[in-house]
């Protein structure tokens, strides 16, 4: 199957890309990894009038840790995170996620920022980004702005990015020694979208209670969902099996999936709960808090 015809422009810089978007109008799309866009174009579900290819903008491929953030450039591929020791050692939540996105070949081309911009309700990065409270930087004709992930995610396949804007990077707060996370996902097979997924990102207070909690679930609603009730439930409390069970129940309650080949509403809700629980337990495990009572 072959895409409908389109115009192609290779941008040499971000400004170049912004100018091209302005020139081609709202039916133009940014081409980064293209691992969601190109298949959609082959089925002629997506038919952009023009593609603005940013792959030549070499400097966008960075993964850098600076002033309290890990910043991931628009061309950083999932594979880069999967293999970087910095990520494996300091950002296990991101390492988890990068290792289960799509399939291992697609991950060598797909980008983190592209996945966030695509904002598929079953995507993995939106879930992790909510849990870890990431921020997305957008640049447009009127300069650049940074948007908290909760505001960036607007609706299914819809983000706060304006049609003339380019998402240039996403940044994750750097964890302290008492912070860890985990991403859990059920997929029918490698390469499938999640049947359900969950991410937990927990910071322990010095007294051993949970200081800050980030809990999110995916593939069980119009977008990835923050389980705020579970977060407040956890914060300030000593982690126990029962506490995690309660928090997981909140995830199950909040989940509002549609039935499809991947499963019924009932099953997906239940899995959202199970996975949220497993994510919290795994995150605590990484903080040396195991064998909970």
């Amino acid at each position, binding site marked *: 199957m072959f895409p409908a015809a389109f115009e192609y422009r290779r941008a040499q810089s971000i400004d170049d890309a912004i100018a091209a978007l302005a020139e081609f109008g*709202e039916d133009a799309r940014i081409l980064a990894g293209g691992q969601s*866009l190109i*298949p959609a174009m082959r*089925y002629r579900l*997506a038919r952009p009038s023009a593609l603005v290819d940013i792959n030549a903008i070499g400097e966008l491929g960075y993964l850098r840790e600076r002033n309290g953030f890990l910043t991931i450039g628009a061309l950083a591929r999932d594979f880069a995170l999967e293999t970087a020791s910095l990520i494996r050692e300091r950002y296990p939540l991101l390492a988890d996620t990068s290792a289960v996105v799509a399939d291992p070949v697609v991950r060598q081309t797909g980008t983190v920022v592209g996945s966030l911009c695509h904002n598929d309700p079953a995507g993995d990065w939106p879930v992790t980004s909510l849990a870890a409270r990431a921020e997305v930087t957008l640049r447009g004709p009127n300069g650049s702005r940074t948007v908290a992930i909760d505001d960036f995610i607007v*609706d*299914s396949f819809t983000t706060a990015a304006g049609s003339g804007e380019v998402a240039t990077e996403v940044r994750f707060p750097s964890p302290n020694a008492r912070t860890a996370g985990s991403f859990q996902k059920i997929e029918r097979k490698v390469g499938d979208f999640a049947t359900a997924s969950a991410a937990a990102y927990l910071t322990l207070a010095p007294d051993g209670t949970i200081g800050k909690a980030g809990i999110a679930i995916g593939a069980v609603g119009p977008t990835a969902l923050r389980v705020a009730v579970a977060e407040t439930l956890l914060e300030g409390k000593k982690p126990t099996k029962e506490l995690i069970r309660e928090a997981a129940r909140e995830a199950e309650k909040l989940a509002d999936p549609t039935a*499809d080949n991947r499963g019924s509403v009932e099953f997906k809700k239940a899995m959202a709960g199970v996975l949220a629980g497993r994510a919290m337990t795994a995150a605590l495990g990484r903080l040396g808090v195991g064998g909970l009572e």
Partner: protein
Amino acid sequence: MNLSWDGEENIPAAKATVWTFINDPAKIAGCLPDVESTAITGSSSFDAVVRVSLGPVRGKFKFKVSLAPQADRNRMDLKVSGGGLGSVVDLAAGADLAPAGENATTLKWHGDASIRGPAATVGGRVLDAQAHRVIGTTFENVKKALSV
């Protein structure tokens, strides 16, 4: 794939007013979001071309809409058939009106859609979101139109 959605609008207008409004194809057509063109084809039917623009998806859906009022049950049934993007959409929506006091009416709506074709299997989640948005916004617009 088969989809279904529900919604409710509380409209600050008497039931009779709302009823007359939703019986008029021209008025309903005017409430569709992102409409490119509409053509009234009868006392209770119209054609519409709606622009789809969601994430990677850009295109047009062509719909034939027919209204089937059931005055005795205070219910309006809409049959919507058409499609685009290599898929066929058959949608049956129903709106039940109930007076909510003097000058207010509750409009409870329900929609069942079947989406067929390759686009449906590849872009199922996109089409689901899009169809939900079209039908939801339509009834929101009915409310807006009657709120002034």
